[in-house]
C-alpha cells in the first residue's frame, strides 16, 4: 500500500513516515507543501493520503479535489495525533471505506 503524508511539521512528518514504513507492505512518502504534494502524487500511485498537522482547510480542499480528479478511488484521511498509536487503525479504517 502506498501512502502520501502531507503535513507542515518536518520532524513530526519524519516520525509518521518512519512508523508507516515499518509496517510490512506499506510504503510512505512525505510532502511539506501543497505544491510538493501535487508533484509527488502525480509521479507515484498512492492508495491513501493522510492530511496532517498545519494543513488548513483551504489547502485540504484544493488538494482533495486535485487528488480525486487524478485518482477517484484514492482514500483521503485527516490524520490526528502526529505519529502516534492511532496511525495503524487510521489507515486500516480508511481502506475499509
Amino acid at each position, binding site marked *: 500500500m502506498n501512502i502520501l503524508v502531507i*503535513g*507542515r*511539521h518536518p*520532524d*513530526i512528518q519524519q*516520525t509518521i513516515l518512519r512508523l508507516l514504513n515499518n509496517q510490512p507492505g506499506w510504503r510512505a512518502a512525505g510532502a511539506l507543501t*501543497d*505544491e510538493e504534494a*501535487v*508533484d509527488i502524487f*502525480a509521479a507515484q500511485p498512492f492508495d491513501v493520503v493522510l*492530511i*496532517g*498537522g*498545519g*494543513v*488548513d*482547510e483551504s489547502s*485540504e*480542499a*484544493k*488538494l*482533495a*479535489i*486535485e487528488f*480525486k*480528479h487524478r485518482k477517484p478511488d484514492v*482514500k*483521503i*484521511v*485527516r*490524520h*490526528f*495525533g*502526529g*505519529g*502516534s*498509536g*492511532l496511525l*495503524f*487503525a*487510521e489507515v*486500516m*479504517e*480508511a481502506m*475499509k*471505506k
Partner: protein
Amino acid sequence: MDRNGFLKKSITTLAAAVGAAKVTKAEKQAEIVQQVGFEHLPSLNNKTMNSVLHKANTRGHANHGWLDTNHTFSFAHYYDPERMNFGALRVLNDDFVDGGQGFGRHPHDNMEIISIPLAGDLEHKDSMGNVAVIRQNDVQIMSAGTGVYHSEYNKNPDSKVNFLQIWLFPKERNITPRYDQRTFKPEDRVNKLQQIVSPVKEDNGVWINQDAWFHLGNFKKDFKTDYTINKKGNGVYAFVINGDVTINGQKLNKRDGFGVWDTDKLSIAADSDAEVLLMEVPMN
C-alpha cells in the same frame, strides 16, 4: 503540471465543483476527506440501542515489560474496528509503568491529551518548556495543536505509576500548543461529582479545546446521583476506576466502560464504595 498550474487549476476546479453541485465548500470537502472515527459504533452486544458496554476484560492488552497497558479503544497494535472511539473520545489507555521507566520524547499534533494519575508520580517534559510532576489528584491537559514533543517517565525508581491516558479529537485543528495542570481536592468529590475538565475557561477544571466535560466521583456504597448532560447531543462515557456501580440500569465493575448517548441524564448508583470518571463528549 507545474506548481502554478496546479494552484490555478485547483481554484478553477473547486469553483466549478462547488457551483455545479450547488453545495458549500465545506460540504464538498466533507464528501471526499474522511475523518476516521468521530462517530459512535453501536455494538451488537448493546444492552440498549443508545449505549455501548466495554467490560474491563475485553480491552486490548499489551505488556511491553516496562509498560503494562489496557486499551479501551484501538491503539498501537490493538485494532478492533468495533472499538475505534466513542464520539470525540478516541483513546482511553490504562497504563502501568515500571519504576524509572517511561515514554521517551515523541511528537503529537491535533489531539487533546488528558492524563489522570491514579497511583504514583509521572514526570512530564515538553517542547513548550514545561517540566512537571503530576500525582494522584492532579489532572494534566495538553492541546497538541500544530505539534509538540513530550516525554513521560515514572518519577519513582522503585514503584509503578498507574495513569489514565485519554485523547479527544480537538474541536479546532491547528491551534497553538498549550499545557495546563491542576490539583483537585479529593474531599470535593466524596458523594458528589467534581468537574475536572471543561470547555468554559472561567469554569472549574482544566480547559479543553472541545465541547467536553469530565467529572470524577468518589461514592460511598448506596449513594445515588444523576448526571445532567451539559450540551444537547453529547454522549457520556463512564469509566469505573474502582468498585461497582449501576448506571442507567447497567451493572458495572472495576475498569468497565459504558457509553450512553441520545439522553439528557444518567442515573448513577454505587453498589459498593466506588470511584467513577464521567466523560461527556460530542458524538458527531
